[in-house]
């Protein structure tokens, strides 16, 4: 195997150190777990002069609950997310999605922040976070701000991050509803999703209090479906699911690629949306006809 060359590795121990490196060095790029970056460099060549490894920055790692939010450090590995009982209990969709990412080796190295900043339209952690109303903390030396996670993505493999900015935190409100994640891949593990879907809903007896749906690999970015607020307090039945499904199909823009055709993606969106809604409903104690 060829060694990767053409860059210098910088390993700051603090967040300020990392931000200073990104601010002062030309053509510097942050490195998280490297599970997307390194294969890209191998295939397309190295385009950065400096790689700023965030692995030693302790303040970017960990999961905790504070002020009504679940806070996740972007350098938290997928394995850490899977082993977190907090995530398993309060953000089930994220737990399930993370379990399906890559292989054990990839999950031990890959990070949630890396998965988001790689900005693949098929990113499996993005859709569960979107339905959980996640926000992203963006930090540079001069400024720090919280934005809705949806606004982080600007296109396929593109984010709004400036070269001197880092994703420094992810937070999601602690909620009472149930969530679910479903995906279609070409085999059971180590594969990019052809389509993935996450659903979140709150139950008020037999009625739906609040519902949100996010879809992956059917648009240039992970997609949070808009306009579901107006459906609140609908009865949970096939008619309701049909209405939600139609709204989803109106907003997706799938394309043909080697993994699947637009037509298949459209059909599978319907299947996954229905399955995810039913699963989220039963996960918060609902009963289906």
């Amino acid at each position, binding site marked *: 195997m060829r060694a990767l060359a053409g860059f210098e590795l910088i390993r700051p121990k603090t967040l300020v150190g990392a931000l200073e490196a990104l601010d002062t060095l030309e053509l510097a790029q942050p490195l998280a777990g490297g599970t997307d970056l390194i*294969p890209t460099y191998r*295939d397309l060549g190295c385009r950065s002069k400096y790689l700023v490894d965030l692995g030693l920055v302790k303040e970017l790692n960990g999961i905790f609950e504070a002020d009504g939010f679940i806070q996740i450090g972007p350098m938290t590995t997928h394995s850490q997310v899977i082993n977190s009982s907090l995530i398993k209990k309060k953000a089930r969709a994220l737990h399930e999605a993370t379990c399906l990412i890559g*292989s054990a080796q990839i999950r031990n190295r890959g990070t949630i922040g890396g998965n988001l900043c790689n900005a693949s339209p098929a990113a499996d952690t993005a859709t569960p976070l979107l339905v959980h109303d996640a926000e992203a903390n963006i930090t540079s030396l001069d400024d720090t701000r919280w934005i809705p996670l949806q606004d982080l993505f600007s296109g396929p493999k593109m984010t709004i991050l400036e070269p001197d900015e880092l994703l420094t935190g992810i937070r999601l409100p602690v909620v009472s509803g149930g969530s679910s994640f479903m995906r*279609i891949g*070409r*085999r*059971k*593990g*180590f*594969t*990019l999703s*052809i389509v993935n879907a996450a659903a979140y809903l709150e139950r008020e007896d037999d009625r739906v209090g609040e519902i949100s749906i996010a879809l992956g690999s059917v648009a240039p970015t992970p997609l949070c479906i808009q306009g579901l607020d107006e459906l609140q307090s609908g009865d949970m039945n096939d008619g309701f699911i049909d209405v939600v499904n139609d709204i989803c199909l109106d907003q997706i823009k799938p394309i043909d690629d*080697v*993994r*699947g*055709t637009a037509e*298949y993606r459209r*059909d*599978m969106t319907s*299947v996954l949306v229905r399955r995810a809604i039913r699963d989220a409903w039963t996960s918060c104690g609902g009963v289906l006809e």
Partner: protein
Amino acid sequence: MRDSNVYDKKNHETKIPFSDIAEELHIRGESPGVYGFYASPKRFFNPETGLGVNYSVYTFAASVAEVEVDTETGHVEVTKIWPAMDVGKAIDPLIIDGQIHGAISHGLGFAAMENLQLKDGIVMTPGFKDYIIPSALDTPEIDDTIIVEEPYKYSAFGAKGVGEPSIISVVPAIVNAIYHATGVRFSTIPVTPERMHKAFKEANRK
């Protein structure tokens, strides 16, 4: 040679343990190795009649497959395979099992996943990211291999091949199981979820 002893060809009463011979050879500094040549029996084939003996030895394998098909997504799950093979002589049964388990994984990939896609002569699936092969998670339950030992007279101990031929029956077994489960007959492999789903859609339209 029998039971770790070497016998005199003419006088069958006279024997000496093989270990003694090995020791003696070692002391004299001589190798027990021999070199020799083996020519497989002549093959013949008449292209006009299509008759003849094309291979020096024919191997026979059979498989039974059980599948579950998701009629909404088109995903085919191979749940169990029952393999059987005539290996001539099972010199090492564990190696035979290993070869056959590998062949089942290969066969599953061949039947349901491996899809070389070309566009204007350019391979669109050049790496394992997009050229999908089965992983351990996709491997079905495999029943005990039924080993048949019908010896082949020209080979060592009557052994036949096991590596390559064991793949062949797995593929039609899976495709036939799909037909048995769904009524859809495929003449193109791999049966990807997308092709399966398309076939269901077309069947529903009729």
